[in-house]
């Protein structure tokens, strides 16, 4: 006999009692969301719950357990009705047949057609659509305007090339003390694919192989960026502590006003407003080698319907709803979150905060890698990606690092 918690029993009896008095049949949908996407998702879910009889119940899953939970859930036939997760898992999930085919519902939806191309790409497999952009985030470059002014740089003009980042960082480091020119989390694979790879892509490289025959880390961009990072490291423009930072201090030093320039995500806008409202900072696209080359990593969560969901139609309705103007503007934009439809970037809430408009535009110039085993290739603590970064920047062997990473990534892609 299974014993549910007392709370569960109480809730059940309450539900039974109210069932006789409630309208029609109000269903409850379950939805899983990863921990770092919870705040954003809650906005949309609350908005839906306020205006719909069928309520959505959110369950927060720690980020790096989401795949395991979904996988075991599908196998045990116990899945939520909706799931919001890091979009880089889409290819693996689609291939494994975990997600419900939404093509019919979404292809006909004009709102879906105006979703950022990166989100459409990542949610398509074999011509079928399995999900939609949900709570987007995108990477951008931020700079400390006060430090720029102090260093004699134009505080309103952010760097527009990797070379300029290097030069500006040098000038800021010259201010001395514990002020540094540049920052990156040296032991955080995710942080660097998010903020470092767009520099490489902007400079003309293609990053990850889609299968065993595809090439990895093509072009000159990878070497150019790694050379720049290595130079900034050896010249002492980056704090020593960055080497061991696994992401836990991703923006801590910038927030303390000690860093001139670094890559970050759109989430900092709301974050800084809350924690350091007096911080004077600028936002621009992540640049390549030459002026005019820009890119971004299009990230955040997608929403999908797991196979085995017990409320498929309602779930589809939710997804259609979250793509509407109302949901995107009142649910996301109002809370400083990017809408997944770039056409809505010029909304009334963003007008008050121009940084958000820039960030929303970054969605349009950004890329997202469509690969299997992204976790193993990039995010894992033993991934070829982080090994390459650390070998190139901290050990100084840029060419060897790139060569090794290319081979390992191809091997993983061929699995």
């Amino acid at each position, binding site marked *: 006999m299974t014993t549910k918690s007392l709370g569960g029993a109480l809730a059940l009896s309450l539900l039974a009692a109210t069932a006789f008095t409630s309208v029609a049949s109000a269903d409850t949908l379950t939805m899983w969301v990863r921990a770092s996407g919870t705040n954003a998702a809650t906005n949309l879910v609350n908005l839906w719950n306020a205006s719909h009889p069928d309520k959505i119940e959110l369950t927060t899953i720690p980020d790096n357990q989401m*795949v395991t939970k979904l996988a075991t859930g*599908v196998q045990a036939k116990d899945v939520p009705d909706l799931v919001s997760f890091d979009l880089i898992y889409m290819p693996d999930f689609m291939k494994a047949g975990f997600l419900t085919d939404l093509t019919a519902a979404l292809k006909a939806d004009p709102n879906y057609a105006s979703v950022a191309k990166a989100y459409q790409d990542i949610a398509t497999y074999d011509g079928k659509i399995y999900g939609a952009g949900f709570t987007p985030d995108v990477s951008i470059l931020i700079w400390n305007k006060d430090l720029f002014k102090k260093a004699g740089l134009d505080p309103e003009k952010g760097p527009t090339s990797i070379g300029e980042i290097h030069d500006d960082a040098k000038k800021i480091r010259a201010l001395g003390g514990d002020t540094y020119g540049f920052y990156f989390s040296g*032991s955080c694979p995710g942080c660097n694919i998010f903020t470092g790879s767009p520099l490489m892509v902007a400079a003309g490289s293609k990053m990850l192989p889609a299968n065993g025959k595809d090439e990895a880390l093509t072009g000159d961009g990878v070497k150019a960026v790694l050379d720049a990072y290595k130079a900034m490291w050896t010249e002492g423009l980056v704090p020593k502590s960055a080497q*061991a930072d696994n992401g836990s201090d991703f923006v801590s030093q910038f927030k303390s006003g000690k860093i001139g320039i670094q890559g970050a995500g759109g989430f900092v806008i709301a974050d800084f407003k809350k924690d350091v409202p007096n911080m004077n900072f600028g936002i621009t696209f992540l640049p390549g080698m030459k002026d005019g080359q820009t890119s971004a990593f299009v990230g955040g969560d997608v929403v999908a319907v797991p196979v085995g969901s017990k409320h498929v139609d309602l779930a589809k309705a939710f997804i259609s709803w979250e793509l509407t103007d109302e949901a995107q503007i009142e649910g996301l934009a109002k809370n400083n979150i990017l809408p997944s439809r770039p056409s809505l970037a010029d909304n009334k809430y963003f007008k008050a905060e121009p940084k958000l408009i820039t960030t929303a535009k970054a969605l349009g110039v950004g890329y997202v890698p469509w690969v299997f085993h992204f976790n193993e290739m990039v995010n894992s603590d033993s991934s070829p990606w982080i090994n390459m970064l650390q070998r190139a920047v901290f050990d100084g062997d840029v060419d060897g690092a790139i060569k090794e990473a290319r081979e390992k990534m191809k091997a993983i892609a061929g699995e």
Partner: protein
Amino acid sequence: MNGVQARRRRRGWLYIAPALLFVLLVVIVPFGQLIALSFSNQSLLGGGHFVGFDNYVKIWNDSAFWRALGFTLKYTLLLTPILMGLGYALALLTVDNTPLKKATRTIVFLPVVIGLGSSSLLWIWLFNEQVGLLNKALVDLHIIDAPIVWFISADVAFWAVAISVTWKVVGFGTVLFVAGIQSINSEILEAAVIDGAGYWARVWRIILPLTRRVLLLTTLISVIGSLLALDQFYIMTAGGPRGQTFTAVYWIYQNSFVAFKLGYGAALSVVLTAIIMALSALQIALSNRGKAE
């Protein structure tokens, strides 16, 4: 064999039957499934087929696993004497039931009740060179000039983890040893004092030998725990730098849940379990032989 003895023997089995059945169902059965899984190349995301002994052959050639295992053994060999030695020393220190010593015992035991995940993060916070207070304290006390970055060198990272784990678990051994020492018949010790034996002589010749059993039990538990270490490295070093601090279980985790290779991870688990059982049997045999002398 008379009826009474036979009945008693059956009774004995009856009493241990529920626990035995429970372990069989909740551990042995899934372990059997794990073994079955190890003969396939099943992915975490489903699918896969029978591959015979392929996984085990792969393990033989998996240098990363053996490196992780070697690191785990080094960790165990270095940490166990520290934990046992410090634990026993603290036990000797606080064995009297004076208020001060009882309070010390409580405070030493306190970290044991925290989860290992929380404790690891607590120490990562302390060691963090950006927001951590340990570095600040060391600098303020003029012990060092500049904050140490604790996790960029594998050796320093190792000792950082060792410090945090020692803090967390030394109390467990201490309390066990205190109980052991307190149960020694006071007459034996008083006789030794009368015979003129000094404090350390009493410790060496009487207390240590008479607490042998609890020492061996605690060491065994500690060794097995260290061989299965995961959380503290997962949280504090992320296996770094450059994968030098992966433990055996961490490597299994990477294979099963990050690279999705469930079948291969299962084979690694089986191999690791076999190694641990062998080491434990060895430890028990050595301690039994010692006892017989």
